[in-house]
């Protein structure tokens, strides 16, 4: 039950120049940004790492984002492992705009530790732009490789990388066993934090990273728990008459928007994280559900059928003014906002198919990122550049995967054969 954080590894920044690229999200949506061709050269390895190699991990990380085109460089002889004597002409001829080189060694002082030194090299400008050294335990090899991806990503896009972050999801086995699991963002190192015989839905990671709120049917009806990830202890947040569901953390992690029914329809309430101070947000005869806060904490986006079919609305929690946000499809659900508040992520029914969609909240332009037919539960990565969602594998079993914000890359996350659903994404940690 106890969630163990990685023991820290040390990273030493040896060189970084000012980032030259800064991809605006809006630009990405407009399709102006093209994929950056980058070669991740196999790291020289004097330790003998026998798991997936760093260059493979970094390539997969960058590939998921749809913003990079990792080049296939198998069969290249005399690969460099540092930024000395780089043959710029050769890499340029291979169309590489950047290359990453590195080596894995045993640490001089403590042989149990590994030392990874790597560089990001700009081939066009013929210069090294980042050099770093990481020292850590052998079992932190994967985590260090993800940190390399983070730095490459941040240097080239101007946004924080999310390759070190965690996700959580529900695993369902034979309709009899349910578990809430935490893993690395790419599905590795998964472990259950809750096992039960009844459904679990709507897990939501607190923005401060410390807790996960979720809905459990253990009490023969939906109730909301909050589980502390460090201690593994959980508390019952809401067990009112009727249904208790759809927890959504406020940006400061102090309050939650939740949905209660008592003996009527689903309505949105706000409650303190300790279960005190409950108050109803609005009253209506329609369904109001799936609350989600704007990053400034002033608005709550939600789905409602007040206009007939379900659409996405927002309510200003100070003056209670309600605004309709989506118009394009007949049936729109599951709203959430990017961390800069500029993009709405949601589920749109399009010609009978449920697809992941994004609406630019400035231009109101809508982009469908997936093809359906039964995609669900879209959620942003904490940098707003990648989306986790569920789809039906071969039309049957629900699985999770990521889709890039430009819709170009859809990549599965493999966490086993069971039904995998209802994902959530943890915050960026340092």
């Amino acid at each position, binding site marked *: 039950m106890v969630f163990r954080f990685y023991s820290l590894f040390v990273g030493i920044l040896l060189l970084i120049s000012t980032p030259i690229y800064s991809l605006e999200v809006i630009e990405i949506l407009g399709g102006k940004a093209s994929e950056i061709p980058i070669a991740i050269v196999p790291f020289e390895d004097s330790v003998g790492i026998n798991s997936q190699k760093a260059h493979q991990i970094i390539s997969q990380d960058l590939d998921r984002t749809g913003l990079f085109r990792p080049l296939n460089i198998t069969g290249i002889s005399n690969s460099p492992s540092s930024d000395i004597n780089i043959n710029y002409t050769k890499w340029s001829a291979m169309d590489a705009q950047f290359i990453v080189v590195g080596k894995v060694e045993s640490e001089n002082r403590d042989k149990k530790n590994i030392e990874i030194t790597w560089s990001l090299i700009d081939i066009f400008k013929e210069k090294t732009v980042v050099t770093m050294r990481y020292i850590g335990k052998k079992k932190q090899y994967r985590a260090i490789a993800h940190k390399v991806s983070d730095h490459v990503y941040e240097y080239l896009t101007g946004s924080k990388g999310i390759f070190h972050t965690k996700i959580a999801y529900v695993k369902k086995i034979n309709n009899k066993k349910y578990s809430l699991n935490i893993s690395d963002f790419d599905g590795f190192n998964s472990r259950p934090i809750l096992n039960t015989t009844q459904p679990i839905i709507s897990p939501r990671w607190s923005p401060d990273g410390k807790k996960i709120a979720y809905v459990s049917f253990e009490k023969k009806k939906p109730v909301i728990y909050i589980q502390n990830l460090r201690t593994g202890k959980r508390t019952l947040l809401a067990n009112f008459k*009727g249904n208790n569901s759809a927890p959504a953390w406020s940006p400061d992690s102090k309050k939650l928007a939740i949905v209660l029914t008592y003996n009527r329809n689903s309505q949105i309430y706000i409650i303190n994280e300790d279960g005190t101070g409950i108050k109803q947000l609005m009253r209506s005869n329609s369904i109001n559900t799936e609350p989600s806060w704007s990053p400034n904490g002033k608005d709550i986006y939600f789905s409602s059928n007040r206009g007939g079919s379900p659409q996405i609305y927002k309510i200003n929690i100070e003056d209670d003014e309600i605004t309709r946000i989506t118009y394009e499809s007949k049936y729109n659900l599951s709203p959430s906002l990017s961390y800069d508040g500029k993009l709405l992520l949601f589920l749109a029914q399009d010609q009978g198919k449920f697809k992941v969609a994004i609406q630019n909240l400035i231009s109101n332009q809508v982009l469908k990122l997936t093809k359906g037919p039964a995609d669900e539960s879209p959620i942003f990565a904490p940098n707003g550049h990648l989306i986790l969602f569920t789809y039906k594998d071969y039309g049957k079993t629900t699985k999770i995967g990521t889709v890039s914000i430009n819709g170009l890359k859809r990549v599965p996350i493999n966490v086993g054969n069971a039904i995998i659903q209802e994902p959530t994404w943890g915050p960026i940690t340092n």
Partner: protein
Amino acid sequence: MKKSLLLLSLVGVLMAGCSSTPMDAPGDPSSNYYGQDGSSDAATSESLGLDELRSNTLLSQRSVFFDFNKYDIKPEYSDLIGAHAQYLNNHSAARMIIKGNADYRGSHEYNLALGQKRSVAVKDALNSLGVDDSQIETISYGEEYANQECQADACGQDRRADITYEVE
């Protein structure tokens, strides 16, 4: 418009029920004390009319089915709802739990809300026939127990509200 027609037909059913079937007299007040002298089972059975609940054909029908993304009750369920209303009105100690469901399409949370709307729709129909609010509890299971692989018409089996009684 549709709704008021439905209510009219429900009232009609109830009145027809009243005139053709003799109502069970409410049980002796003393029999309402459950758990007394070890006679609780018999007492409960009598005050709740369990025999009737089990043997009556209409009362043994417990599911109301709905169209996709809908929660209005179709006219064909008037008899079923009328019978349950009459039963609840005759047995004030009876407690009903209505459990709403939805097919897998759409989000888990919206389906939970949709299932709740379905159970509330059945409750509203019963209320309009005079059933006291305190006798009915509405909850929803959403799509959580639905067939996740249903195709087309087969998904209709999951779009329903189930009537259950606390004593059962």
